[in-house]
């Protein structure tokens, strides 16, 4: 008798909850962790001076993906030859840093909207069984790092809007600061308003467009 009473009740609850779950699963809004991650992605692109002015060819995609990784999360995700010699056994000496294959390809896909072509890797990069080995000296040779790169800065998110189709539009302003020797204060040294659009795919946000909306300062 009790079982008979409970079954319709459980069924009714499931029917009532199911459609709500479907809708929210299709278009969940980003949580704090996701917004922080997207903000950091955009700030790194600004630091790199990257713009989506034209589609990337295979070499460029490989190159820009690894540069992004090095700048954005080098210390979090790189493995070094001196720390893990076993991983580097039989790998030429000049390749001294390793990145997990899935991580590199995830960044190529979700930040730069492309697929790494394993037959068209950039110079200084070697693909092993589980990931990419990087000749840092070779890659660094081509990276232009100016003094501004290391100045303190941040991306202020001023607006975060989710469209009906689930697209996420983030706008705000990048800023970096430099110490003024005369006043002893850190003053604005560079700024750029930005707007970016993301879509959610396979549970992750993929960057669709990223533009600097006004002439950048600094």
């Amino acid at each position, binding site marked *: 008798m009790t079982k008979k009473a409970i079954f319709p009740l459980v069924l009714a609850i499931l029917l009532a909850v199911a459609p709500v779950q479907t809708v929210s699963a299709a278009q969940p809004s980003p949580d*704090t*962790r996701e*917004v*922080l*991650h997207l903000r950091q992605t955009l700030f790194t692109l600004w630091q790199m001076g990257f713009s989506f002015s034209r589609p990337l060819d295979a070499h460029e995609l490989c190159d820009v993906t690894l540069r992004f990784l090095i700048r954005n999360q080098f210390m979090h995700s790189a493995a070094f030859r001196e720390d893990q010699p076993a991983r580097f056994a039989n790998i030429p000496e000049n390749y001294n840093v390793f990145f997990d294959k899935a991580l590199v390809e995830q960044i190529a896909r979700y930040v730069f909207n492309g697929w790494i072509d394993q037959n068209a890797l950039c110079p200084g990069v070697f693909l092993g069984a589980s990931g990419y080995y990087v000749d840092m000296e070779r890659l660094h040779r081509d990276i232009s790092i100016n003094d501004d790169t290391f100045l*303190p800065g941040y991306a202020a998110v001023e607006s975060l809007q989710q469209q009906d189709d689930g697209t996420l539009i983030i706008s705000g302003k990048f800023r970096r*600061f430099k110490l003024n020797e005369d006043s*002893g204060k*850190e*003053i604005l040294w560079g700024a750029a308003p930005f707007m970016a659009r993301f879509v959610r795919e396979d549970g992750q946000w993929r960057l669709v467009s990223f533009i600097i909306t006004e002439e950048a300062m600094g």
Partner: protein
Amino acid sequence: MQKNIRRLLLIFLLGVLSFTPNLPVKFCQEALAGPMGMDEPSPPEHPLTLDERLVLQNAVSVLWQDTALQKPEALQALDPTALDIPRDIFVDPPNDFFYNGDDIWIFEGMVRKMAVQSDGIEGISKMQSFHMQAKRQADGTFRIVSIHFPPLDR
């Protein structure tokens, strides 16, 4: 007489210390070995991810502005992933994390607040160093054990 004995004892002790091999080196090594002056613990099985670092950085920005949240009982109940993101406060540089054993990370750096100055120019209106300890729980979430904002030297 007693004074002379004390002096002799002191000279003897200094002599022993001076001729103990590698003692000054040991002192220096201990002073240089990590933020707590101890030997560096083994790396954790699960190092911090980028997202975990970003969440902890954001927690510093929030806590800096809210002294009530800095109290131990408030920290105990704090979920760093559920905090708002302050708009013009930021932590830099972002990579000063040290693993301190027992799933505790020490995070040190500088937190800044941007504001428009009286002359209309944007700049850093306030900055402070911080020292935070965060512990990873069994379920993978983080609890902030302590946070301090020591005064700046400059």
